[in-house]
C-alpha cells in the first residue's frame, strides 16, 4: 500500500521536510505491516455494559481561573487577548 505521507502530514498540521519523507514513509510502512497482521473479527461495536458513564449535570460551574491565569502561558497576548495571524483578508 502507498502511504501518502504528505497528505497525512497536512491533515495532522505537520510539516515534513522533503529529505525526511522517505524515512517517515518506510517507518510508517513497517508499522502498518505489523498492524495488518491483525485477524479479522466479525463483530459489532457495543458499549461496555459494565461501565456505564455518569454524566455531570448540565450546569455552569463556577470559574476556577482568572483570565490572567489562563493567558499566562500564551506565546503572544495583547490587551487581554490572544494574538494570532490575520485569518480573514
Amino acid at each position, binding site marked *: 500500500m502507498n502511504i501518502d505521507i504528505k497528505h497525512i502530514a497536512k491533515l495532522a498540521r*505537520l510539516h515534513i521536510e522533503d529529505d525526511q519523507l522517505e524515512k517517515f514513509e518506510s517507518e510508517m510502512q513497517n508499522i502498518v505491516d505489523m498492524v495488518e497482521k491483525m485477524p479479522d473479527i466479525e463483530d459489532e461495536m457495543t458499549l461496555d455494559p459494565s461501565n456505564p458513564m455518569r454524566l455531570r449535570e448540565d450546569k455552569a460551574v463556577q470559574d476556577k481561573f482568572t483570565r490572567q491565569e489562563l493567558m499566562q502561558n500564551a506565546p503572544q497576548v495583547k490587551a487581554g487577548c490572544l494574538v494570532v495571524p490575520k485569518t480573514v483578508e
Partner: protein
Amino acid sequence: MELFERNACDLSEMIKSRKISSKELTESVFGRIKAVEGKVDAYLTLDKENALKKAEEVDAKIAAGEELSPLAGIPMGIKDNISTKGLKTTCASKMLYNYVPPFNATVMNKLESNDVVVTGKLNMDEFAMGSSTENSHFKPTRNPFDTDRIPGGSSGGSAAAVAACEAIVSLGSDTGGSIRQPASYCGVVGLKPTYGSVSRYGLVAFASSLDQIGPLGRCVKDVAMVQSAIAGHDRYDATSAYREYPDFSAALNADVKGLKIGVPKEYFGDGIDPFVKQSVMNAVKELERLGATVKEISLPSTDYALSSYYIISSAEASSNLARFDGVRYGFRAEDYDGLVDMYERSRSEGFGDEVKRRIMLGTFVLSSGFYDAYYKKAKLLQRRIQQEFSDQFADVDIIATPTVPTTAFKIGQNTDDPLKMYATDICTVTVNIAGLPAISIPCAYDDKGLPVGIQLIGGKFTEQRLLNSAYAFEQLVGGFKKPQL
C-alpha cells in the same frame, strides 16, 4: 544507613515519633541529588526551596501535635506530565518548554493534603511516548545500575530517581507499560492501577482511554502507601470510577496460601530472554512454596495486543495533541506565513520525531477509508483481549509474567528502529488494553548486576491482592538492592 536510603514506611514512623524531622530528611535527599544527579539525570526541574518550606511546615504541624498522613514529610518526585501549579510541567517536550500550569492535577491536590514534600519534576520520553527516556527533548536519563544503559520509559526519571535514592517515592504514568517497564529495568516496585481508580485530571493526555497515574517505590509497602493517597473518585475525570478504596498499606498481608496463580504460555515465548524467563518462573515457584497454586493458562490474542495498542494509542494521541497549536500555550515558531503555516511550523519545530510519528500514524488510522480496517478492528480486538483476561480471572486470582523481555539495553541501541523499541512493551500493553491493575517487582539480577522484574496482573480493582502477593514475595526473597553509583 543514610536517611535518603530508607523506605517511606520507616521514615514515616521516624518522622511521626520525632526521631528525625522532615527537614533533615529533605536535606538528606537533596544532598543525594547533588551527589549523583550528574550521573543519572533523572530530574528536569528541582524545587528545593518549596520542598524545604513544605518540610518545615510538616515539622511545625507535628510539633503542634497534629495527626498527619503516613506520607507527611516524605520527599516525592513527580513525572513531568503531571500538572503542578506554579511549577514548570514540560512533558520533556520543546512544545511545553516554558509551560507553568495554573492548576494542580487532582493527584497533586491529594498529595498536598497528605503533606507530601515535592522534590521536583522527573524526566520522561516526550509526551510519554517511548520506552527508554531517550525521547526527552532535554536529555536522556541513565540507569543507576549501569549509567551506559537506559532506565526504561516513559517514566524513566521516576524509576531512576527512586533507584538512585534521589527521591523516596515517585509518581509516574502508564499508558502501555510506562511505570512497570522502567521499574523493572531499575529494580524498583511500580504499580499501574486499574483504569479509573486514580484521577487523570491534570495528567497531560497521551491516550485517554489507556493512561493511568501510579506510584513507584523501593518496597511494596511504600507503593501501597502512595496508592492509598492518590486513589479515589474525582468529578473532574469523567472516566473516574465511583468506588471507595481501603488503606492498602495498613491491610497488607503476606499470606498467599490458596492464591491461584496463572502463568500464560504466550508471555514466555522466543522473544523473552532465557534468564528473564527462568527468573520469573523461579519467583512463581517461591510463591508456590508459600502455599499458592500454579496453573498454566493461555491468552491467545496476546500476539495482536501490540498492534491494537499502537492503533488505539496513536489515534487518541493524534487527537489529544491537536491542542498544541502555538496559540494558547507552549512553543510558537518565530517565522511563519499566515495561521495554518504558524500551526504547521510550531508543531513541526515543537514536537520530536517519535511524537510526530505517532500523530501521523494516528491521523492515518482515523483518516477516511481506513477507519474500519484499523481503528475499528483494534477496538474489537481490545474487547477480545479483555474477555480473555476476564475468562481467566474466573479461574485464577493473579497472572504472573515477565515485565519486560530483557534487562536494560544500552543507550542508543534501539533508537533507529521504532519497532524494536515498541517490542519492549510486549508484556505490558495488554494490561492497559484490558484496563487492569498490574505491579512489577524486582525478582532477580543478571550476571551484569542488572535487575529483572516480575509482573503480577490482577482483575479490575484487585490492587490489594496484587500488593499482598508482591509483599509476600518481597518478604521471602527480598526486593530492591541499592546500585553502586
